[in-house]
């Protein structure tokens, strides 16, 4: 998997429990990694033999953004660095290339850029496809209309 780059975390208060290898930060917590940034009320970072393996964040809501393609927020978010997935639960919302997904649970895989939204109970998945994504021929790259020439 491509190297993600260093992670920096800032917060009002932080506490690091040496033996459990977890860092708990609270109050305007912000995590930055390359073009990805996360804001939350409380964040726990889990390390395993010195290496960060998992981040759990809760907030009202937790906010996440990655370049201009991805933007998300949810009640709580789990960033599994090993599996390279982000799992948002609790009124999860994600906007990816203009399409917005809402649902009980949304999973985003960092490598395949695949979004999986699923419902729970009566909270169903809601996807909004903006008009410009459907209007013929307005796709910036695609100036010819026939799809065969689509890359």
């Amino acid at each position, binding site marked *: 998997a491509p190297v993600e780059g260093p992670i920096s975390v800032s917060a009002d208060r932080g506490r690091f429990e040496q033996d459990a290898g977890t860092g708990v930060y609270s109050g305007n917590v912000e995590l930055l990694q390359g073009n990805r940034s996360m804001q939350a009320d409380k964040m726990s970072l889990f390390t395993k033999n010195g290496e960060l393996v998992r981040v759990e964040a809760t907030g009202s809501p937790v906010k996440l953004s990655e370049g201009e393609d991805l933007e998300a927020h949810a009640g709580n978010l789990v960033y599994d660095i090993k599996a390279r997935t982000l799992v948002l639960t609790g009124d999860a919302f994600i906007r*990816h*290339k203009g*399409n917005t*997904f809402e*649902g009980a649970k949304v999973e985003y895989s960092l490598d*395949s*850029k*695949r*979004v*999986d*939204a*699923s*419902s729970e109970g009566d909270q*169903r*998945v*809601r*996807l*909004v*496809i*903006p*008009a*410009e*994504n*459907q*209007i*013929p*021929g307005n*796709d910036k790259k*695609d100036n010819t*209309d026939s*799809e065969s020439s*689509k890359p």
Partner: protein
Amino acid sequence: ADNDLNWVDREEMATFPPVQQRTVPDWCGGMYYNPSVGLPVEGSDTVVTADHSTLTQDGLISLDGDVLIEQPGRRITTDSARLDQSTGKYELESGMRLESDQATFIADNMSGQTRRREGSLQGVRYALFDISSRGSADYIYINDNTTTITNGSYTTCAPGSNGWSLHGKRIFLDREKGWGEAENVVLKVKSTPVFWLPWITFPIDDRRKTGLLFPTIAIGDDNGLDISQPIYINIHPQMDATLAPRFIDGRGSGVDTEFRYLTPLGSGDLSYGVLFNDRKFDDEDRQVGRWTHNGNVGRWNLSTDFNYVSDDFYFKDLDTGLEISSQTHLPRLAEARYYGRTWDMLGRMQSWQTIDPTLADQDLPYRRLPQLQLSGDPSLIGPLKGLWLSDFTAFERSSSDDSGKATGLRGHAAPALSLRLQNSWSYLEPRGRVYHTQYKLDNVDATDEENPEITTWGASLDSGLIFERPTNWFGTSYTQTLEPRLFFNKVGYEDQSELPNFDTREVTFSYNALFRENRFIGYDRIGDEEKLALGLTSRFLHDASGREQLRLRVAQGFYFEDREVLTDDPLEDPTDDQTPLVGDARWNFASDWYLYTEAQWDLEENERERSNFQIGYNDRERRVFNVGYHDRPADDIQESEISAILPIHRHWRVVGRWMYDLENKRTLETMAGAEYRNCCWKLRLLSQRELTDEDGDGDVEGDSTIWFQIQMIGLGGFGGQVDSLLERSIPGYRREYE
């Protein structure tokens, strides 16, 4: 059953919020309507809800579990759907339902392309709202304007009723052209196959209401059975034709054809009908032809109305209705009119085919080949205006005419100066005019003058005041006007007994006629006159809209000298020193009612001269009603008429007309008919009788006909005959009201 195709009956419609309610046509139990989908909004987002959805990097969206795809004006429910955003292609694999403001489709699956707004469905049941039709099909392809149905059915009958249905290998509906086409077609009535056709076309909206499959059947007292079977040929969006073979039991068979065209120079209609060797007309062919055209090109209006008929009795024998059988002259006219800012021009060729055998040769009208006229009102200085009128006409008569009447050329000019002074409450317009007419006559007997000419002059003063006051009628505020008018007219006398009379007659006496400079119409006579005309008009103008609710007018003229210039049978005694009193009233007393009456009273002999009374009602919902009274004692004409088309029940409509001759105590025309209509059928029965001079000996006999028509709504309209008969006979009825 098909009641899940968004068919809304009257009760359900009433449950909708008032703003969403649509009027269900009264002859049909309901209509296809889906307000819950709303109306399409350009550039609106698509909102999708599902149990589960995934989006891959290259834009492939898949949705599963109770999927609902919604846009304003469109809603799709299915179990699973795939959408490739980069190409716009979509697939709905399991059973789906597409609802829009225009249609409802229930299908096993559907695929298509959002970019080109097209889709194809398998195993479909459909309803198309705007042409109120439904059916089922193995396969349907839809895009913005067309719907292609493969191995499917089409009907406009309400769900649950199998009045008729069209089954075809391929049914193609083009909403833009308003046209349907079907191949390898079976028509089923009450689900029993009635006939098979390789190919048919039919109108699917009311732009063209001509018949396709539906015969018009008539039974006449002297024609016997008279069947005509119209076949409609849609040649080109701007051209269509109707071919109607016709069989008349008592006479023989023939064909009526009609060709309609639309060109940049205007639209027109070319019709020709022939009945081959008519057994009741010593085996002669009977023919009728007509070309009408009307076109606007810039400020020019081009129009023609050219008629031909093989004999004087064509209409009396082969057509129906007092309107057509009372015609005495058929126009042959080609006209070009220019409407300029100051100058107007007219160029026309006009002659007539006379079909009244009782008219003597000298009563036959002249032909104007051509007539060229220029008129204008150039303003000179300030309010001073020049008024120009010049007319050059060549008058001819038919070669077989032995009336001995003169023919030749006539030039006429009537320039004038007018100084109209006007403000909000008054106007004053003195006018001075010179008349000059010159002739170049041929076939004139030796004693008469070959180039007679006359010149005379005229002076007039037109003046008037306008008073106003606010009034109130049943709670509505009006402005009532009182408009006295004084018109003095003096035309110099010139002897005109030498002049021929090509196209001149006294103007029919009316309110407006009193305020004319020349009491003759036509340019062969300039009526000498010294007359003062007094008029009084009162209008009631509805303050909120400015609408003229009521207009009352009264006027009378007073002569200061006898009239010398006369035509052979003057309408008015030239020694009278006053004209009859004339009054008219026009009252639109309710939104759909009107009253129009005009009466002239000769105060000296204290008798009525001519009067007319019309009261009528027509709204745009197919209700028409008229009562009329026409009285002209001088010519022993006193006739009343009453005509109506009234829906009397959701499915039934009755037609009636009665024209009675009070002078001779006889019925001139009667018409009685009924029409049944539901969502997909229309049946019409009409009986008609009129008095007409059938064999040209001057006395009239009865001629009656009964018509029967059937129509499958959505597959074509009636043949045109009955509609044009109704339009001619019931004032205010128009076939678009169907």
